[in-house]
């Protein structure tokens, strides 16, 4: 558990000081001659940083995430995690989806144990850790509930615990709370920050909500559609941990305006 709760609060933004865990150069994905999902995206993600990908539908943000996950191949360009080209899903990269994608016939803790089970034998330590992770995401007393007995927000909590159980430290989150109501989403975002700060994970977070993208991230990759392009990377200089009041400050809204300006041109 020590590794999970390593309370090493992220220093503000000293991105330059940390090595890049993810580097993409001219990453392009074409689904056909005419359908270009992503064109020439060049970017790098420093270890331990939280990067949001924001943009309207069709800007290629989910496609980019899936290529990093090794779920779909790219058409051209290079994409490397920790210096190795991505060819297939890796153990240090984990993904979470908009839908909880839980298995209905497994209890919460059995769902959390799925990645362990897929990798080989499940030990008592794994079981203990799964329960601890469920507690970490705020699901005491629901370890043996089936997904159908849980609310949408609680299902996503299980899904987050399952992601943490994989042991991956590069987390790809594809609109993980997009299906939840506004209030639940806000609360989940704050908890997500607390948890990923705690484990020092690198996060790529896809969303189409500008304020959410900025509130969570050290850097915002602003993407525009048809063809999908990475328009600009915007730095977010606020210290962590962040309070929700941040979104009412003038500095915050300046960044919102900047991002909106980039998106508005398209």
């Amino acid at each position, binding site marked *: 558990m020590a590794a999970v709760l390593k309370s090493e609060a992220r220093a503000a933004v000293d991105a330059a000081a940390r090595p890049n865990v993810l580097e993409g150069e001219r990453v392009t994905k074409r689904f056909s001659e005419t359908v270009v999902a992503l064109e020439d995206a060049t970017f790098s993600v420093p270890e331990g940083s939280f990067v949001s990908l924001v943009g309207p539908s069709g800007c290629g943000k989910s496609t980019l995430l899936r290529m990093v996950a*090794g*779920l779909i191949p790219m058409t051209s360009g290079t994409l490397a995690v920790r210096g190795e080209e991505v060819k297939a899903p890796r153990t240090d990269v*984990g993904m979470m989806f908009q839908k909880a994608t839980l*298995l209905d*016939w497994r209890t919460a803790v059995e769902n959390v144990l*799925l990645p362990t089970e*897929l990798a080989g034998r499940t030990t008592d330590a794994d079981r203990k850790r799964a329960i601890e992770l469920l507690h970490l995401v705020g699901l005491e007393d629901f370890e043996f509930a089936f997904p159908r*007995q849980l609310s949408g927000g609680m299902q996503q909590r299980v899904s987050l615990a399952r992601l943490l159980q994989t042991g991956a430290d590069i987390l790809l989150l594809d609109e993980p709370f997009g299906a939840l109501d506004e209030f639940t989403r806000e609360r989940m975002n704050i908890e997500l920050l607390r948890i990923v700060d705690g484990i020092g994970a690198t996060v790529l977070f896809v969303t189409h909500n500008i304020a959410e993208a900025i509130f969570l991230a050290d850097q915002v990759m602003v993407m525009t559609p048809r063809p999908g392009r990475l328009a600009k990377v915007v730095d977010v200089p606020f210290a962590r941990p962040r309070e929700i009041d941040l979104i009412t400050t003038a500095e915050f809204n300046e960044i919102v305006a900047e991002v909106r300006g980039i998106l508005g041109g398209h």
Partner: protein
Amino acid sequence: MDVSPPADRTERRRLATRRVLTHLAIFACVLLVWEAAAWSGIADPLLYPQPSAIAASIVRIFFVQGNIWWHLWVTMHEVIVGFFVGTLLGISLAVAAGLSEILRRYMKPYVIIMEATPRIALGPLMIAWLGFGFSSKLAIIALVCFFAPFVNTLTGLLMADEDRMEMMRSMRATKRQIFWKLMLPAAMPIIMAGIRLAMASALAGALVAEFISANHGMGVLLTRYTQSLNMPSAFASLLTLTAIGFFLYRTMEIIEARIIFWQNDAEMHRVAKRRGAAWSSA
């Protein structure tokens, strides 16, 4: 879990008892009217035997002569074996087709032809090929039981949602793991619906097969009683089949609730409790 106050519960039980009594009273009335119709000559008792005669026949064919047991055994034996053979063949072939796109493509025209053919029309051919005995009945019932599980299993396997597939792949699950841990359990509800349909057609298939040609079985018994105008016994045989059908249906329902427990609230709570208990004792 019942959390309502005790007074409320007694009240509900009282209402339930009353409802059962009303049902029984209506049923008794129907029997009385029927009996009276036969007595008064409105309905010809030779063709439409009165309930008392049917009841007497039931006692006779089950306990006095006891001749129904052998036929019942023959039919049930055919039904159970045919059901298992047909269902297992259907599911295994669907699994193979579900996993192999090539197999699926080349099988498709035959499946469409077979599906368009009324399976029971193959009955006389089966009897010509396999004789009057058990094997032709087994073949007919298996044929009748094949399609629903086949089609449903294939549909269920191909329905697996893309998000959960990606989730499994992102965790580096092998093809085998994806099949056993995701595709098959996810398809279980629709597979079970197919199996339930097969169970219902198995009994019907057995009877039709026996009507076509056989020396033993409930179909034979029913034909013999009807042809000799022993209507009370024909009705008694029919009621026996109704009871069997009901029993098979209920059994399937219970098995289904156990297998796909996560779709049934009561079962789900039970399993959740059991798994919680097993966990803390491990």
